[in-house]
């Protein structure tokens, strides 16, 4: 699958394209498939998100999972600060990144 990601202009937080908007939760991300480049171009024009790019991913138990560790770290948060990740109460979240 193909995922579209970037950083929110105002907060800088990592965001994922949900099909009609952006979300900080990768669970909300959709497969942009062949439409990725067109969405990317339109969203760059809208200027809500910085440094957007398309990545390869797959599905893990119904949740999109980025193919590269860098984007998996982006999706969760710093692995050395579980309290600052998006899943502070999920002890297995970091293992899934690595």
């Amino acid at each position, binding site marked *: 699958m193909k995922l579209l990601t970037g*950083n929110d*202009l*105002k*907060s*800088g*937080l*990592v965001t994922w394209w949900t099909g009609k908007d952006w979300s900080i939760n990768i669970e909300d991300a959709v497969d942009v498939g062949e439409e990725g480049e067109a969405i990317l171009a339109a969203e760059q024009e809208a*200027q809500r998100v*910085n*440094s957007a790019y398309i990545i390869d991913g797959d599905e893990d138990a119904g949740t999109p999972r980025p*193919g*590269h*560790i*860098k984007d998996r*770290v*982006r999706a969760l*948060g*710093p*692995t*050395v*600060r579980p309290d*600052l990740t998006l899943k502070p109460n999920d002890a297995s979240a970091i293992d899934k990144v*690595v």
Partner: protein
Amino acid sequence: MYKYDQYDQSIVDARVAEFRDQVERRLAGEITEDQFKPLRLQNGLYLQLHAYMLRVAIPYGTLNSEQMKMLAHIARKYDRDYGHFTTRQNIQYNWIQLDQTPDLLADLASVEMHAIQTSGNCIRNISSDQYAGAAADEVTDPRPWAELLRQWSTFHPEFAHLPRKFKFAVIASEEDRAAMRLHDIGIQLVRNDAGELGARFFVGGGMGRTPMIGPMVRDFVAADDLVSYAEACLRVYNRYGRRDNKYKARIKILVHELGKDEYTRQVEEEFKHIKTLNLDPPKAELERITTFFQDPDYDKSASDDLDLSDPDFAIWVDQNVKTHKQSGYAIANISLKPIGGIPGDATSAQIDVMADLAKEYSFDELRVTHAQNIVLPHVKKSDLYTLWQKLDEAGLATPNLDLISDMIACPGLDYCSLANARSIPVAQKIAQRFSDVGKQKELGELKLKISGCINACGHHHAGHIGILGVDRKGVENYQLSLGGSGAEDVSLAKITGPGFDEDGIVDAVEKATNVYLKEREGDERFVDTYRRVGMAPFKEALYD
């Protein structure tokens, strides 16, 4: 400590106002990210892996309690309650919001601080010896010179768009505590046979993907000519440094490709020309600056006696307290490397504690070290025990200065968009493996440095043991290197061989230390033994 004059304050205030307008226009969609990016970078605002990151300048690593308190305030109000002290003696915040940045910069400006020139292809924060003004071995206090260079380089129109970033270090002792020769320009203040003050200039050092030790281009530049000579070094670089290839654009490449002699010839020619232009700062300005760096009002009757009956205190003193030039006083190092912690990180509460302790026990002064620790430079020996108790209460009394767990580690893939591998978890695992203080002390001085990519922000080339994280087909892998040093015995580490996975690199470090313990002669440090016996026994232990 230096105090801003009206010019310093006005240019910083004006920059805050200018950036506020730029941010408003960006948020309103009036300028694109391509247009905005160079503007935010000129104000230290990066877009990192998870959010915006702001790098705040701490000139030559020196700050007062009020400024340190402001750093804590910023961590609390604008970030997630912590900051990360860096290898350029600065501090970084990892979770900054763009719309709040102008207010943050205004808060910084209120205590004579800013984030200008902490990014971009300009002259970056001038670094120096963290013991400046307190060390017994310095020929003069290097900070007035660092401050003079700061003023000269701030908004210097000719050097605002260099081929690449540019880093200075200024020291004034034979012992190099600032990795001076691994800078674009390293300046060592010295006295000649006549007792006159001048400087050795080392140009073209650096780490990154092409590590080089800066050769000396002049063994004595008269003190009055120091700024002119620096200007000449920069002018030759600005004229001939490569702009076609980012990876060959640092001055080290120019010096290497021209050769030291030809580069020096061109600098000398330019220097002669500059001297005709009368560009040197007026002596009165240096004298004005120097008045801010006078010795504090020491108690000349302070005793050197120290009660070491508390064994934990004795261990801390032995490891973290260094000799001061004034009898009755000491230099206290605060390690930001608790076992299992994140090297260089401090919470807002800890930053506040250090500020308060500096105010009470160190004449209101703190220093940030390039090894990501904090120094209280002027502590009366009779106050050390109370100081240590208060540090201990705040989790700041780890007695590991210059030991294996006192690691430099870059933020790595946990925070940095350039990184290929995580540095911090490796640092944590190594610290835990060697958590026993007795074991660490048995190993003695051992500088371990970890970078999460080839850009070498973690100084792995200069580690007695260096670790470089790389991406091997999407999997983190770690290369081990041995024999580097950023000190006066400067050298570049050599790679041992194939890399290791995250757990394997921890084992590899332990095997290397075991070889050292077996081969060590007398008082040899790890790096001394490595230099004597060479790579072979280490490779044998690591790969056979």
